[in-house]
């Protein structure tokens, strides 16, 4: 972990050194990072939309078959009795 932190510090120091020598390079670097970040955001949003479509597709599978069957039975039972009156 300490090594990784040291390496990151080295990279940041290198960037700062380069930017002192050539400020234009810093601007270009930031621009490239921004483009890269924007592209990642775009890909993530596309992935999210795909997940939503998969989820919604799954939601379509629900049905009320059992409820309808029970309801039909109850209606037949009670209405027949009502028609016969006892």
């Amino acid at each position, binding site marked *: 972990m300490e090594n990784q932190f040291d390496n990151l510090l080295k990279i940041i120091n290198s960037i700062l050194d380069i930017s002192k020598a050539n400020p234009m390079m810093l601007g270009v670097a930031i621009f490239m990072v921004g483009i890269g970040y924007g592209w990642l955001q775009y890909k993530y949003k596309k992935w999210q939309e795909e*997940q*939503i479509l998969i*989820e919604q597709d799954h*939601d379509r599978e*629900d*049905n*009320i078959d059992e409820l309808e069957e029970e309801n039909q039975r109850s209606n037949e039972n009670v*209405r027949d009795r*009502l028609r016969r*009156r006892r």
Partner: protein
Amino acid sequence: MKILVFLFVLLVVSCQQLPIDRIDSAKEHGLFNIELHSCNKTQIGMLGCIIPKENLENYYLEIPTGLTGSYLIRSNKCNFRKEGAFSNKEIVKISYKELLANRGYAKECLYDIKIFIDNYPKSFRGLFKLTDLEDFQPIELEINSFKASTTAMLQYRTGLNPATNFVFKYEEKGLFILDGCGIHIEEDYNTKKEINFKILVPEFKKTCNFVVGMIPINAEIPPGLFSLTVNRFNQRTQMISKPRIWFKGSKFALSFEHAVSHVLINQKLYTFTCGGLISCKGNKRHKIYLEYDPNMLYEVRMFTTNGRYNLFKYKKGALVWKTNSIIY
């Protein structure tokens, strides 16, 4: 410098998204919550109406949508299936003639309704029921202050067992019959019959349909009929809470819980976004300020991306309508 500003704006704008709803979705926990209009009634989630004797083309089921998406309405027993898309503020409107065109000999039709809103991961669900009264008469139902004639559809969260009974009222005395959800009751009644809530609505069953008949001893009085649907939903989901309202000068102010992503007030749509500098999981309420008109009825419809919904109506600063068929 300009590039830095541009990149900063790009960062903030590209992060915009709808607020995250941390409460579980309604659909996953058995709560029906689509707004339904028909037979001069408005309800959220479930609605029951009687089939008119004639002119079916003049009666409609209406579903206000508010946003953009698609719907699917199905009844297997009554051979009905319709799906389509809707755009902002469009009302999905289907006539009884169309709904009942292929019902055959079915005396009751249940319509399972699904709404899918664009960019919302969770869908909304509703249940609409059409009952043929035939030559029977309406039975009245009372549960405390809740009253209904011939048909009713109610939702209770699990764990809630009100002490109040279901009271079915009909003329004179006679035989009371109830059938549904594995329960069959036949007992005498004297102008009314009280049934304990716990008997009718066991915890383990999500949705139950009951058909009730009352046969008076007097043969000259026709039998009565009632169709009752009761749904149990898991308490892990909730209806969106009522907005807080107050007045600020000439403005009518409303604030909504953070999870709300869209609000429709009459015909105007408000979208709440987050991201960038605004947390999507926070607790900060959203506020809207409107020009106040004391003669106007404010219909406030709220949505979350997790498929939660609610409707409240205000007039003269007071709440004049909220759903009474969902008890939680």
